């Protein structure tokens, strides 16, 4: 892996009483799913905020206790709730993410929903970032209680050109997602937009440049524009922070800095399946291992399991080869979708992989490539699943 900064990987060694918890956001509320120490049985804590659309629930890895939850109902405005005691009690942000008041003659932007939450750098323990629909970047410096728009992005002279208009977004609204903080440098940020593409800042969001060379946008006359692509999910490897992967509307890509050209690594996927999907999951210790969950991106974009036969795929060599992982999954007539925040990995050895479906099931595999097992069913439509390790 020339050029990559790679720390020596070390297997996690959870204490005997530690356990994995899945933070689940759904169309109708949030659940915390507590596993036993062996990840064999699961206990549901919820619903939290029943009836709210919960697009993301995130743990603060700096204190392993604080949760932030992005919520709105179908009819009320968007907000963020915070829990300082891992979900026992919640308090609403006193100033949720919101665009600044438009000046006379300016487009009047309003946050429809908060879509993505990212904890800040380890050196900035109270900082969080949020991405919204329509595309907006917001920062909190007090642990998520008050939020301010990041003017360097939201008021950038190119904002309207980069983000397109409402017709360029996804069916339920254009989104900012995949906000990534370089673990080596709090000022170095990446983000993705559906639509708009990938952007990078090296000055804590004061200025931004497109980072889309090599990634395709086959819905434009020029299929390789400077921006306007539709990245669905982007991940940076924490132990090799020069390595990024991207599941895009037009394929699976890998980027190794300092290069600024994405390499399509999905072309080795079976042609009958293709390399379109929403989520992307990295192995916590091996930067060459990536899981994806393909969906049908043909004709009118059904966005369901290809041919009704759901399967994850894994590469162990940065995309040179891919292996189908469908043992235990329905073999036919299963037409669900796995959303971009709804697939995740824990940090154990072997790694546990989890995904949630639009039909309300959570599937897990404790042995990385082994048999899938459904651990929950009949939840509402699942938007997000994050795996965290907690004590006790």
């Amino acid at each position, binding site marked *: 892996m020339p050029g990559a900064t790679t720390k020596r990987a070390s297997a996690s060694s959870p204490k005997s009483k530690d356990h994995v918890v899945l933070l689940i956001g759904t169309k109708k509320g949030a659940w915390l799913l507590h596993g036993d120490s062996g990840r064999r049985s699961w206990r549901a804590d919820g619903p939290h905020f029943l009836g709210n659309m919960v697009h993301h629930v995130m743990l603060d890895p700096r204190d392993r206790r604080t949760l932030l939850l992005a919520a709105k*109902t179908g009819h009320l405005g968007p907000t963020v709730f915070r829990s300082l005691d891992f979900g026992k009690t919640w308090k609403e942000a*006193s100033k949720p993410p*919101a665009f600044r008041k438009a000046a006379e003659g300016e487009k*009047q*932007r309003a946050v429809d929903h908060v879509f993505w939450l990212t904890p800040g750098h380890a050196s900035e323990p109270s900082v969080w970032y949020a991405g919204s629909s329509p595309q907006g970047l917001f920062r909190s410096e007090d642990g998520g209680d008050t939020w301010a728009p990041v003017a360097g992005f939201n008021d950038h002279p190119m904002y309207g050109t980069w983000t397109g208009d409402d017709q360029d977004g996804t069916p339920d609204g254009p989104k900012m997602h995949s906000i990534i903080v370089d673990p080596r440098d709090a000022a170095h940020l990446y983000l993705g937009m559906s639509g708009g593409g990938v952007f990078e800042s090296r000055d804590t969001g004061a200025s931004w440049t497109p980072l889309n060379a090599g990634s395709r946008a086959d819905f434009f006359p020029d299929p390789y524009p400077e921006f306007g692509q539709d990245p669905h999910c982007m991940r940076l490897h924490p132990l090799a922070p020069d390595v990024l992967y991207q599941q895009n509307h037009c394929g699976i890509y890998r980027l190794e800095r300092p290069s600024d050209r994405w390499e399509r690594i999905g072309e080795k996927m079976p042609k009958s399946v293709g390399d379109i999907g929403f989520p992307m999951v990295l192995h916590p210790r091996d930067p060459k291992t990536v899981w994806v969950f393909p969906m049908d991106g043909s004709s009118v974009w059904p966005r369901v399991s290809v041919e009704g036969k759901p399967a994850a795929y894994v590469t162990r060599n940065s995309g040179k080869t891919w292996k189908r992982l469908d043992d235990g999954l329905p073999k036919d007539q299963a037409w669900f979708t796995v959303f971009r925040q709804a697939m995740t990995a824990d940090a154990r050895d072997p790694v546990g992989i989890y995904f949630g479906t639009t039909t309300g099931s959570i599937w897990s595999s404790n042995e990385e490539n082994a048999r899938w097992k459904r651990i929950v069913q009949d939840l509402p439509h699942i938007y997000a699943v994050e795996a965290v390790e907690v004590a006790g």
Partner: protein
Amino acid sequence: MKVLIPTPLRSYTRQRADVEADGSTLDQLLVDLDRRHPGIRFRMIDEQDRIRRHIRIFVNRKQVYDLGRALQAGDRVQILQALSGG
């Protein structure tokens, strides 16, 4: 004056269906309502001071679209939320 609160917003009013708030305009009344029940205004009014899509506000049983609407002591303000969807 008295403000009637719909059920989706009663988590802000300790489940009370009617609360007190003051103001010489609807905008001022909603600011005062938010001072007494923090967070409630943003769920109804967006950051551009527009009434959100499914919120309806009535003064003395007439729907009001303008936050600048003048209010007088004794006016009855009713907030409703249109329910739709699945």
